[in-house]
């Protein structure tokens, strides 16, 4: 996706900090279909992170053996981070749901291929930090060392031991 707006994602150090500060994640648009990217990302988040993961999808009842909630409002917690796998036209409605929670989730995260500068501005005005067109799994693996083992360029240069 080519973006012509001036909106910029938080830099790498900030993305790492967001992930460090995140305990609970809600995956909106998570799919029970193993062939879908959201399901695949879910397998990673459950197996390789310490996040408490909640699935939101009004059309599914169980994903990877876990319960699925019809809406963000019906989750037992207010998640720290909302990770969105929905079509671009559905995004304003998802943000409405996010801003309807009290307190607001700290981070509104849109997956690969999803970018909407207007939406980001609206979320930020309400005090919610935004990351767009990024994969939560890839960003976690970048800092946790998984991407490095797969030969990818993490951009991490440091003389300190990995956490």
């Amino acid at each position, binding site marked *: 996706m080519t973006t012509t707006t001036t909106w910029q994602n938080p830099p790498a150090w900030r993305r790492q900090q967001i992930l460090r500060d995140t305990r609970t994640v809600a995956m909106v648009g998570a799919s029970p279909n193993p062939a879908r990217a959201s399901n695949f990302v879910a397998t990673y988040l459950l197996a390789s992170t310490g996040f408490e993961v909640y699935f939101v999808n009004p059309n599914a009842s169980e994903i990877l053996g876990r319960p699925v909630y019809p809406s963000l409002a019906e989750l037992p917690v207010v998640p720290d981070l909302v990770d969105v796998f929905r079509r671009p036209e559905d995004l304003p409605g998802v943000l409405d749901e996010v801003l309807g929670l009290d307190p607001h989730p700290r981070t509104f995260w849109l997956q690969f291929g999803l970018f909407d500068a207007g939406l980001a501005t609206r979320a930020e005005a309400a005090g919610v930090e935004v990351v767009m067109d990024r994969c939560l799994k*890839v960003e976690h693996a970048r800092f946790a060392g998984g991407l490095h*083992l797969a030969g990818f*360029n993490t951009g991490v240069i440091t003389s300190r031991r990995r956490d």
Partner: protein
Amino acid sequence: MSERANEPAGAPSEPEQSQDRSWGFRTRAVHAGTVPDAATGSRAVPIHQTTSYVFRDTDDAAALFALQKYGLVYSRIANPTVSSLEERLASLDGGIGAVCTASGQSAEFLTFAALAGAGDHVVAAAGLYGGTITQLDVTLRRFGVDTTFVPGTDPADYAAAIRDNTRFLFAEIISNPGGEVADVAGLAEVAHARGIPLIIDATLATPYLCRPLEHGADIVIHSVTKFLGGHGTTLGGVVIEAGTFDWGNGNFPGMTEPVPSYGGLSWWGNFQELGFLTKLRAEQLRDVGATLSAHSAFLLMQGVETLPQRMDQHVANAQRVAEWLEADPRVAYVTYPGLPSHPHHERARRYLPDGPGAVFAFGVAERGSPSEHRHGGREAGARFIESVRLCSHLANVGDARTLVLHPGSTTHQQLTQQQLEQAGVPEDMIRISVGLEDPEDIIWDLDQALTAAQKETS
């Protein structure tokens, strides 16, 4: 699609913001890919001499096999020492990632085989390394992949050769040993107009002298054996991808269709910009097995750390040797793009501003005809090769030592006369890979060998 891992610096003032700094090439040459070992603190990269890795439990094993987790299973697919070299090379070339292989040839094979199958077509430069020509023209042709070899470097000629079933464009940044410089930006435009990637072999440049991804190439291949390793001790190859090509454009069903051996995932759908390299590792290394060993990765990494310093010296020595040869009446021609007389001198200045490498060719003139610059033929070349005392006669380039070779009777021997002409390899051509010796000593040796070659001519 998204910014590269090495993002522009914001305003890094605090220590934790160091990762947003745009580190320089020399820094990355010694640091990228080697965070100190979490368990031991080892500063140098440890050699993980193991074939396999213990699973935590059956769930862990299942998730790793299904690619749901990043981790280690078997060293044919990934090894921590090799991973360090991969990340370092990806960083130096500005790529999203890398897959190392047992040799430069296997790096090409893995890439070609990942993109083209029976019934597909390839457009490649005619002036390629002989082994690459035979890989395409013999082995891959036998597998049903048809290659059109395009003479010269005019992007329009490549555009004309592209068909509906063409899967990629392939060229070398500097041809070996003809010294032609590829018009990377022009070729990228031609390839992208047809929805196919441009693959550039940049072995003779190394990322220190040219980073083709910055000029529009999608994939870069190196024989790490050469200047990257730099010491003539160890074989290795690497494939580096920019991570910007749209593999979902309909031309690459292998990237978008479900993969039964991995539970129906698709490389593009599940891994997006990481998909191509993930396929290369999880499918091509799995099936072909041309894996770089941990020990080789360690040795090659020692070379990569001094790449900038060595390349500065290689290029300075090459320029001096080329100028000396060109001024000598016993030499018929010199094909170094660093010389203003070379037809691609200006293009070399654009793509390789710090110098067009240290591998080039020259011809030994026939005695008594210096002013006519007549070619000396196969015998004068052979006598020259047999007379060197410092330069080593062997089939490699990019060693710390100066190397010479007669391609017509060795690396390019398998080629037909027509292929030789297309590849820009006259029968009298001597290829030289200028090393790190004192340039006066290299020139002394060339001088005495030229004299010997001429003396015996009668």
